[in-house]
């Protein structure tokens, strides 16, 4: 917490000292949630009715017309305060075609964008691909442990909570085409946050997006990088960490017209995994699609389907999926009390396929305020 506050304080002082134009804004959200009672990892407080909150603070400073400093500090209830975003952006180096950013920021992968924050998120949670912890950690694991981890929620996320990572990026626009290329310390599933990915390999990310018409953007991204944590313990078969890569690709779509919004994303990821007897390629397909319709001023309904489908691997001579496939529906209504205050009522139903289907559905009411 001290570190986060210190960095924020230093940033503020620097921005003030450089006579930058500074803007402080943020979002706060408080919610009440009641999930099913079970031991499933996504059950909230063992199914007891619970209140919670989160807080996001944005500090933006424009040093010159072409240089801005950006920071986002986040707090989840009594968790440690941490910085999601701290970057310097230099724009219009060669017109809109060339811009540069360095620091900690959201990597150019997918189209979640501002929907990760409560006022812009039509619903309560994030899609499974951003939220669910798979059975595979970014450490060496045995076949048996991988099997035992299924449904326990202790491994990596497919896309690590919106992929904030430390790195550098060039991006720009050429007509209706947008591009971005970045390198980062961590990978899409194992970012370098909290030393989760501390190896010395850089993740490489490329993204292209095309807007054929106003209101429709189709994008795609690919990334490759070493995902294992460098624990100092020799890897099986004397291989190096750089031999075990995550390769991941996605396509996404954003469509809007009148009062209707649609977002979708499909992801395929493959990891080369050092099992005890051989290297295996494990893969997963994840997807989500969400829609929102504003019926009249202030009031909207929204729904999202998301899912994960895992590849198969031999366990004791039998082919099994390395984690349980999942399918989830989240639907809700939202009402804006004023321009910056939103109240949402959301129901989430999760179905875990191929294993025990733990009861982890939930109902939530959330108040979100932007300031």
């Amino acid at each position, binding site marked *: 917490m001290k570190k986060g506050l210190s960095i924020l304080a230093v940033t503020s002082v620097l921005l003030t000292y450089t006579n930058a134009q500074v803007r402080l804004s943020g979002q706060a959200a408080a919610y009440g949630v009641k999930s099913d009672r079970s031991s499933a990892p996504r059950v909230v407080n063992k199914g007891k009715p619970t209140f919670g909150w989160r807080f996001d603070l*944005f500090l933006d400073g424009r040093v010159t017309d072409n240089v801005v400093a950006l920071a986002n500090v986040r707090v989840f209830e009594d968790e440690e305060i941490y910085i999601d975003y701290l970057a310097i952006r230099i724009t219009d180096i060669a017109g*809109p075609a060339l*811009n540069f950013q360095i620091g900690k920021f959201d990597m150019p992968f997918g189209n979640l964008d501002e929907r990760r924050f409560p006022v812009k998120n039509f619903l309560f949670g994030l899609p499974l691909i951003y939220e669910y912890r798979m059975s595979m950690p970014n450490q060496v694991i045995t076949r048996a442990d991988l099997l035992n981890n299924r449904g326990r929620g202790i491994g990596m996320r497919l896309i690590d909570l919106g992929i904030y990572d430390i790195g550098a990026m060039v991006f720009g626009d050429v007509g209706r085409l947008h591009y971005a290329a970045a390198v980062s310390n961590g990978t899409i599933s194992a970012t370098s946050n909290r030393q989760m990915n501390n190896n010395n390999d850089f993740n490489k990310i490329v993204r292209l997006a095309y807007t054929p*018409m106003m209101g429709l953007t189709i994008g795609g991204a690919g990334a490759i990088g070493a995902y294992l944590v460098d624990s100092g313990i020799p890897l099986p078969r004397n291989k190096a960490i750089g031999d075990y890569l995550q390769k991941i690709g996605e396509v996404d779509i954003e469509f*809007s017209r009148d009062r209707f919004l649609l977002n979708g994303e499909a992801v395929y990821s493959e990891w080369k995994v050092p099992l005890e007897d051989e290297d295996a390629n494990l893969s997963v397909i994840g997807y989500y699609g969400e829609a929102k319709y504003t019926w009249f001023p*202030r009031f909207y309904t929204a729904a999202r389907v998301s899912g994960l489908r895992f590849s198969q691997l031999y366990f004791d001579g039998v082919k099994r999926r390395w984690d349980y496939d999942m399918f989830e529906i989240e639907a809700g209504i939202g009402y804006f009390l004023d321009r910056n205050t939103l109240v949402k009522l959301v129901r989430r139903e999760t179905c875990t396929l191929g294993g025990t289907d733990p009861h982890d559905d939930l109902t939530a009411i959330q108040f979100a305020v932007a300031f």
Partner: protein
Amino acid sequence: MTNCTTLHSVLKNLVGLWVLFYLTLCISPSFAQQTKRVREIKGRITIARSDDDVARPLSVDRYSTHRMPRTGSQSNRSASSTYKLSEKAVIYLESETLKGQKASPPASHPLLDQKDLTFHPQVLPILAGTTVDFPNRDNLFHNVFSYSQPREFDLGRYPTGESRSVRFDRPGVVRVYCDIHAQMNATILVLDNPYFAAPDDEGNYSIKNVPEGVHTIRFWYGREVVESRTVTVRSGDAATVNFTH
């Protein structure tokens, strides 16, 4: 004698008709206004210090930089335009006398433009009952909406070249925003009488045909009323009211 009687009778009828015609005119509202016409409140607005740089909101589009193309160099810029005085100042009158005044809204529709990620003008004064058009002149979507009590609306998203319309029947202040671009905002002042004016870019304004009486004259600048005064309008006078902000 007969001719004289006939002439007298004709004259009497003419006088009667004239009196009837005059009385009819007198009770008609438009004539009543004309007979009370004074008629002008005019003046000059002086802006001592431009607040454009101070008030200019910093808006950094941090999360869509790798989602879709920008339109020009807008990513790091605020609402880029600096408003002219004619776009952000309004002088209008209020009083009990004026509340009862009936006036027809204009047949033509005033515009609240969406251009360069900015609404133009920043404040739009209209008479209750007026329909306003909201053309999109940017190369991207906007979603104009308002949750203000006098008129709630949500126009949804529509592309360049299209326009949507909203009729404003209830007087009051309508705050207008874009759901996509948080820095965009404007105000529609829905007024219950036609005695209002926007200044020219030098600050000169004029409100004509003002009825006699004591009125409150308000100076709206940017997002709010910054000064109000009382002005007495008498027949034959031209009142001058200057404002400095």
